[in-house]
């Protein structure tokens, strides 16, 4: 079972390794981790996707809370989640017809071609987990050269 955890941390040097180290040390499985500044100065927000049952989630939350640099930890429930991930994909385009096919997919998925070369297209797209993996799966047969993903970020729809 996957859980999305949003945490606020003080912007101290080493805070990333503290958080990441905790997961390795306690044997928790991280799917992805994403960090960036939050609305408050000096405070960053991390989104962590962790795999495990209810008990794992409880321990993860409590252990994260114990880190001095961690200000708060929140598990965002699935029914209230809004999540996005950004990907950049470079695909091989050997012929014009293939290129056209790919561009069609880009349109369907509301993605964007951001760079064009003779034999490749670089595409940007964002969406939730399902959309991103669906898109990548359809691109795979064309010969994907490189995929870069930011890791998921998430926000609760409403603050109930």
């Amino acid at each position, binding site marked *: 079972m996957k859980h999305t955890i949003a945490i606020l941390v003080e912007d101290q040097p080493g805070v990333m390794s503290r958080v990441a180290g905790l997961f390795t040390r306690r044997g928790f499985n991280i799917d992805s981790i994403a960090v960036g500044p939050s609305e408050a100065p000096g405070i960053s927000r991390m989104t962590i996707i962790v795999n495990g049952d209810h008990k794992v989630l*409880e*321990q993860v939350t409590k252990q994260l*809370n114990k880190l*001095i640099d*961690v*200000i708060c930890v929140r598990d965002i429930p699935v029914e209230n989640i809004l999540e996005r991930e950004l990907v950049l994909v470079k695909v091989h385009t050997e012929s014009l017809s293939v290129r056209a096919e790919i561009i069609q997919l880009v349109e369907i998925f509301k993605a964007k071609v951001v760079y064009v070369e003779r034999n490749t297209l670089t595409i940007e797209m964002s969406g939730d987990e399902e959309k991103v993996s669906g898109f990548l799966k359809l691109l795979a047969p064309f010969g994907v050269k490189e995929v870069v993903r930011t890791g998921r970020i998430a926000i609760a729809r409403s603050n109930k």
Partner: protein
Amino acid sequence: MELTGTEIIIEGLKQEKVKAIFGIPGAAILPFYDTLGKVGQLPFKNILTRHEQGAVHAADGYARATGEVGVCVVTSGPGATNLVTGLANAYLDSVPLVAFTGQVPTDMVGNDAFQEVDIIGITLPITKNNYVARKTENLASIIKEAFYIARSGRPGPVLVDLPKDVQLDRCSFKYPEKVNRKGYQPSYRGNIRQIKIAATKIREAKKPVIIAGGGIISANASGELKKVALKTNIPVVTTFMGIGSFPVNHPLSLGMLGMYGNYVANQVVSEADLIIALGTRFDDRITRNLKHFCPYAEIIHIDIDPAEIGKNVLVKVPLVGDVKIILQQLINYLEEKDNESWLAEITSIKERYLKYTAQKEDPRQEKLKPKYIIDCLNDFFKGEAIVVTDVGQHQMWTANHFQFIHPRSFISSGGLGTMGFGLPAAIGAKIGCPEKAVICISGDGSLQMNIQELATAIYNRLPIIVILMNNGYLGMVRQLQELFCEGRYISTSLSGNPDFVKVTEGYGGVGFRVEKKEDFYPILKRAFQMNRFVLLDCHIPEDEKNFPMVQPGSSLNNMIGVDQL
């Protein structure tokens, strides 16, 4: 007023009322030691150990004996890495320490400079928190915070890394009055609704037992524990770390729980219908096979660390906070109770076990044996001593047989099981509590892991009595090999042991070799009267065991080395 970084550190130590520091200098921490050299009358004792592991264990022993924060100061690189075992030791046993490490100057950090290591990275998982002082301006608040975090909430070790230039630079000094960290707000008072539920459970229970852990000792809550136990007539078992939290000579005391625990304690916990767990983390050494751990009981768990609740066992009534405060709150809701039939049942288990052990003891046996040694210590000290142990069979014999009646009178490495802890920790304990008798019970294997600290103890004229239980073996491992490896004694014989009496004498101390049973008591008496550092090299048989014990994977009430009673 402008101060240098090192003057700020020393001011900080004064403000925190530090009375002793332990350490070894080196290039990267030279400015600090030089400033100490310039201060005429030092505001605290400065103890030079002979190894940094000795320094951190001494600070640890000091902290456990006094309840105050232990401090050590070492240089960068190897000085810092030599702290690793000691920090892990303190972390697992929740001991408040602040360790200062020298570091190469900030402009050289990251270049693999001479004696540079990333001690922050290395100690990340074994400290409660750690800091690099990047600017002299940050020092005062870092020191304030380090001490506050080490001693508050669930205590633990904190490390402060001090680049050399930060020690030398100057800035104005003001010691902060308060620490304010959004991410660190330990809660101390218990939730009243939960407390009432706990009180009801206690009233309704037919077979309640208290498990008292190390948290009772760190919270100084022995008085509260005693009041609660006496008001409700609930028997008390302690964990290894909880030894001393409840006097073992009290009728409600059942001794230590767990792998090498007391037979009665293990039986009673397995029969209980309610466990009141106080400041304990249900370590696998006390629960053994979790599936069979107290099968009939509901658990009330009181602990300062929310992460401990529900970590290993299912808890019915969780209560987060300072166990001292929560027990004070709880007692108001408790009714007096006699638990008559439960106590009668326990008494009969106790009597059966006493009869059994009495039968097994042979009064005519003439060898010097560990149990006899500890009986003599009981006769002589009557519990009025601080007992520091190393790790091995001698440790478990001590834990089981010494008559501990005061909190902080048993100092031993629990969570990490660190051989080599004993002697330096005894040094720290004696420096912290000079008015108390300090005994170090060690093994021939363990003592050699920090034997260089004989110099520290003897040079500083510390009247510690070392009882060396010399069995010529890494005895505890030998026991496992005997029981579970068909007697293949690989790498456990300590042939090549030195003459420990001569070694002690070589350092300027006094040593006695004790081989005969009848010699032990008179020599102990003489050693005590000498009021100086004395080592008793006690030669005991190699095949003495820690019995009874619970095998890995087994349930608590299924002990070997004892007949089913």
